């Protein structure tokens, strides 16, 4: 979608009254990406809902027999009820909390480990690079989803564990991305200049190279959040997701076997997962265009 729109970089001379920082320019370019802006709005709404879920949920998400079993969506229960008469609307609001936090933390873990490993491999090169990259290859050689299943099945299934596991199994691709950036950036003149005035390795990597490698890292983080939400919901669908409070995926799984009786139990959480991931993908795409207009 986005790649289909020609990126016309207007001259910025007309708006010289304001100071133009890198971020203001990025925001200026991002704003012109219509789908990304709509998606950003959707995500902000979803995160707000997740934050205030305890205050706006009409019922306790875990309370049973609040209404009749399998009540279809209506005035009293906007999203219907489930097999134990729990209010699905309240459960969905709380589910937003679980699903969005899982996505955020898992992607965070993945990108932080990936950045540290990738930076070390790319900056130092040689043996360090070889060893770290071989480790990445080993992890990537196992089909990700199966590796994930193995680990999730073995450890206690708390929300924190699931976040960590998704992060720990997906960092190698981030490491490769960051390594590539560092490999090319470490040859730049400004790095040479920093080194010549006696800057330490830690200073060069943190303050000189990393900021210049940020664009792809930010884009990748955005896409990773959507990916992590999708992964958690796939796990949940198999019966290995976060259940207290249930994520959207676990809610969908709860309606899996009563599809003919209560299709809303599958359709509503499913649609929410789909829209959230779609929104993250659009924002990621918009950011890619905005952060680096040369990349098309």
């Amino acid at each position: 979608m986005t790649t289909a729109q020609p990126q016309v970089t207007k001259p910025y001379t007309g708006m010289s009254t304001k100071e133009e920082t890198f971020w203001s320019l990025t925001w200026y370019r991002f704003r012109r990406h219509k789908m990304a802006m709509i998606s950003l709005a959707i995500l902000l709404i979803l995160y707000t809902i997740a934050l205030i879920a305890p205050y706006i949920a009409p019922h306790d998400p875990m309370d049973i027999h609040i209404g009749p079993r399998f009540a279809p969506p209506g005035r009293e229960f906007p999203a219907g009820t489930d097999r134990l008469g729990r209010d699905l609307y309240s459960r969905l609001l709380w589910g937003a909390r679980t699903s969005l936090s899982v996505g955020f933390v898992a992607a965070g873990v993945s990108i932080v480990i990936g950045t540290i490993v990738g930076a070390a491999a790319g900056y130092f090169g040689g043996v360090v690079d070889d060893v770290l990259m071989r480790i990445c290859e080993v992890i990537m050689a196992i089909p990700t989803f199966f590796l994930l299943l193995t680990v999730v099945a073995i450890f206690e299934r708390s929300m924190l564990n699931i976040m960590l596991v998704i992060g720990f199994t997906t960092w190698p691709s981030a490491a490769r991305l960051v390594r590539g950036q560092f490999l090319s950036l470490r040859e730049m003149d400004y790095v040479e200049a920093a080194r010549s005035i006696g800057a330490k390795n830690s200073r060069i990597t943190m303050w000189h190279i990393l900021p210049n490698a940020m664009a792809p890292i930010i884009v990748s983080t955005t896409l990773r959040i959507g990916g992590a939400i999708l992964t958690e919901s796939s796990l949940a669908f198999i019966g290995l997701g976060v259940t207290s409070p249930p994520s959207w995926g676990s809610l969908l799984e709860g309606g899996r076997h009563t599809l003919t009786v209560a299709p809303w139990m599958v359709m509503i959480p499913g649609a929410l997962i789909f829209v959230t991931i779609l929104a993250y993908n659009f924002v990621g795409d918009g950011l890619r265009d905005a952060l680096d207009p040369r990349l098309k």
Partner: protein
Amino acid sequence: MGRYIVGRLIQALFLLVGVSLLTFTIIQMAPGSFAELVGESQDATVEEKANLSAMYGLDQPVHVQYWRWVQQVARGNFGRSLISGRPVLDMIKERLPATIFLNLISIFFIYLIALPIGIISAVKQYSWFDHIATFTAFLGQAMPTFFFAMLLIYYVALRVEGIPIAGMATIGLDYKDVTFMTWFIDRARYIILPLTVIVLGGLAGLVRFMRASMLDAINQDYIRTARAKGLSERVVIYKHALRNSLLPIVTALGFTFSGLLGGSIVIESIFAWPGVGLLAIQAIFTRDYQVIMAFNMIGAIMLVLGMLIADILYVVVDPRIKY
């Protein structure tokens, strides 16, 4: 070329050793041993549990267990299932045809549909066709497979007569007893839903990839040269550009196959497709370590082989690459 392949094989071997170590370590970290798990369900005494552990060698030190396992695997023996007592390799072997059957047909359709769409999208960049194709691909990438499967079950299978939602073939229907057509139609009825889900899931990525690759080729200098010397647009696009744009697609094939293997776990569990994915899920829920390890190893072997084949194909199709 020969030396290159040998080098790659050695590299692959090291990779597999790494995978086995990793899998073994993860399983060792598991709290709650197999003996505990079985013991609990059978009300076993402490002594009986100890016997159970000794029987499977689970009371040995870690490195002894690992070494024993490696020795077995080197002889093509993945051990016996801790649950059913049957050789793991046999269990996987009887499930593998169903998975490969489903995945090969899926890959065929994915490539058959995705390549033309990607190519046309690139050639007619920014046309309405391109816009619709890229937008649909975007939607497809965000669609969770299980949700799409549930939608298909609800809106198609439950409304259309003759589309079963579970299984691979009608029970009792033996291909020896019926005509080919009957057999074919029966198989087709069962495969249509899982196939649709896998194909539409896999399409999105490949369409975008093909489009990008083709665009890249079209913008090369040799295409301008080809046009400048007056070749027809058809020859320029479908001979000069297309051939070169297919190179990265070849490499993607290796990843596609192993990716589908992991993804088929979800699909197989939804449609009760009797493949390795279902077996894997059962193994995970029962902590059948031997089966889990075998599954990880086979997954890794397939990926490593896939990449190896892709690399070799790459050399074959691109004469510029020399080793």
